[in-house]
């Protein structure tokens, strides 16, 4: 019975290939899983390390620590230099965020509700400061700040931080605006609202969570800014990132672990708030 024999051979062959495929699929999944696990661990370990070491009670850096305790936090809260640095960072970030909002939000309306030529190019240009090589951009800003006598001034730092912070609000608000149907405004206008009233009462009102989320991200961006401050701040303007930077550069002060842990906590809470706000806006 030759045909039957053939069919058996074909079936056997197919089964073999089937088995091979299952094996290869499992290898693929296993390999992918392993790489991802290692990558995730490598991302988590440095962060975990910082948090763990912040509870070392050693005066100088040791790994692993010889004793545990809250010495680093104690040192942090009793030395005035960190408080001044945090205060300056806040003093720069708050006006930078306010300026960023005032710049980005009207722009989002104009870009989405007018037929101005080049409006989309302008929107793309808005994120330029996020993608240019930052050290080169810092030199460019240095040149302009020298010319405008803004170097090492508070105003200069507010401007520099605004340039880096406003794209956050621009991007988040633009995304949110695209999810708000223009019909809502039209409905409001038909019911008797002026355009301004429809914008303010309907669209802007619905954008508020997104604007706040963008503002939080902008605040984090400014609060964390560490490149411009090195080029434009001069010796007198020491923000928190600058203080940490200088400290790390000239030695490993274990107090940094305490700052880092608190900063991580602070940023993660702010980011979760931003995420929450973006969700409610949808």
């Amino acid at each position, binding site marked *: 019975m030759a045909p039957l024999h053939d069919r058996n051979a074909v079936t056997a062959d197919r089964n073999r290939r089937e088995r091979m495929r299952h094996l290869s699929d499992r290898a693929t999944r296993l390999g992918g899983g392993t790489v991802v696990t290692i990558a995730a661990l490598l991302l988590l370990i440095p962060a975990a390390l910082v948090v763990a070491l912040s509870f070392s009670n050693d005066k100088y850096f040791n790994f692993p620590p010889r004793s545990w305790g809250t010495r680093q936090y104690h040192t942090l809260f009793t030395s005035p230099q960190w408080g001044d640095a945090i205060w300056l960072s806040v003093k720069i970030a708050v006006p930078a965020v306010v300026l960023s909002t005032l710049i980005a939000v009207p722009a989002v309306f104009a870009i989405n509700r007018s037929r101005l030529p080049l409006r989309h190019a302008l929107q793309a240009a808005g994120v330029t400061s996020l993608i240019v090589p930052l050290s080169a951009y810092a030199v460019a800003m240095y040149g302009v700040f020298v010319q405008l006598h803004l170097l090492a001034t508070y105003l200069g730092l507010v401007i520099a931080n605004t340039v880096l912070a406003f794209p956050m609000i621009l991007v988040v608000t633009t995304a949110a605006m695209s999810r708000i149907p223009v019909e809502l405004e*039209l*409905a409001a206008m*038909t*019911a008797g609202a002026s355009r301004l*009233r429809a914008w303010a009462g309907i669209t802007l009102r619905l954008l508020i969570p997104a604007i706040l989320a963008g503002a939080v991200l902008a605040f984090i961006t400014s609060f964390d800014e560490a490149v411009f401050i090195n080029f434009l701040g001069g010796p007198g303007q020491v923000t928190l990132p600058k203080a940490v930077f200088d400290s790390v550069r000239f030695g490993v002060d274990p107090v940094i672990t305490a700052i880092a842990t608190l900063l991580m906590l602070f940023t993660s809470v702010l980011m979760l708030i931003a995420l929450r706000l973006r969700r409610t806006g949808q």
Partner: protein
Amino acid sequence: MTDEIALDIQEVSKAFGATNALERVTLQVHRGEFLTLLGPSGSGKTTLLRMIVGFESPTAGRILLGGRDISGLSPADRSAGMVFQQYALFPHMTVADNIAYGLKLRRWPRAEQRERVGEMLDLVRLEGYEARYPRQLSGGQQQRVALARALAYDPEIILMDEPLGALDRALRIEMEQVIRRIHRDLEATVVYVTHDQQEALALSDRIAIMRDGRLQCVDTPEELYYRPASSFVASFFASSNLLPVTLVERLGPDSARVRYGQDELSCRVAGEIAGPVQLAVRRRSLRREPSPNCLVVRGTVAETLLFGDEREVILDVPDAGRVVALIAAHAAADLAVGQPVELYVPPEETVLVTDVDAGAPGTAGDADAPLQPDALAVGP
């Protein structure tokens, strides 16, 4: 409905760049009338509606509402109420606040606002839903709130842009009843946009059929259905078959003699006859039993589909392409694919129309003509 003209659209055109979305549309809507703008997508019906409410401005012509020119006014100053396909309820406001939105802008006293919101909720049968938010309502309920919001401040005209388009079939029929009742009770003037001729038939006092930015004709549903004025109206509105015929002679203002193949017969005439002609035959007019002086359509069965009580029979007819017939299922049970068959049409059910598509691609006689209503019912 009254004789008084509520909305007067005069020679309105709209060009988007080089393309003409609307060409010299002139149309009057009477106070209390329910007028439907019906047409396939891209016919300009939505553009015309958006122009009436003020979301587009006309390139030429003017629009009068209650005798005053509103062409240059903002939507707020037009006294129109608009109902959108996707409801467009304000998601951050309750049902009551949505309905009261126009009243607040008109600075009605609070007590009157509340009273009016109550009346409106009664009207759309949503009593007790004041405090809900739109996201807590079903699609049908949201559209009823949208209707109430548009009616609350008693605008001179209500505009509806495919308001049932986002609803499923059962809800659509329910909403049709709601809309019909409200129109009757409030004697509201309504301009309604749809691409669905069933909806237009069910709701309208008059229907304006649009195509390629032009108004094809405006008439009552009965006239359009039984006495179409052109081949487009016949095929689009009544899904009629279009048979190639030649005019032999006019017998009077509303009848003529035509030749179909070897046969001659009398038929009715509804519109102006100019240029090439076709014979419009509705799908239910094709029968298995002959009648006196009837039209005989000979072809072979290409396909049959059971629609419940009726069977759709598609014939390949030499010279006429595909002809679709809807025949009582029991009378068509014996029809098999490939079988030659004769169907008969009483002469009073045939209408002679001008072939408006003569020379254009996709004319009747093509393999895929006539236009299928179902094909038009889908899409936005």
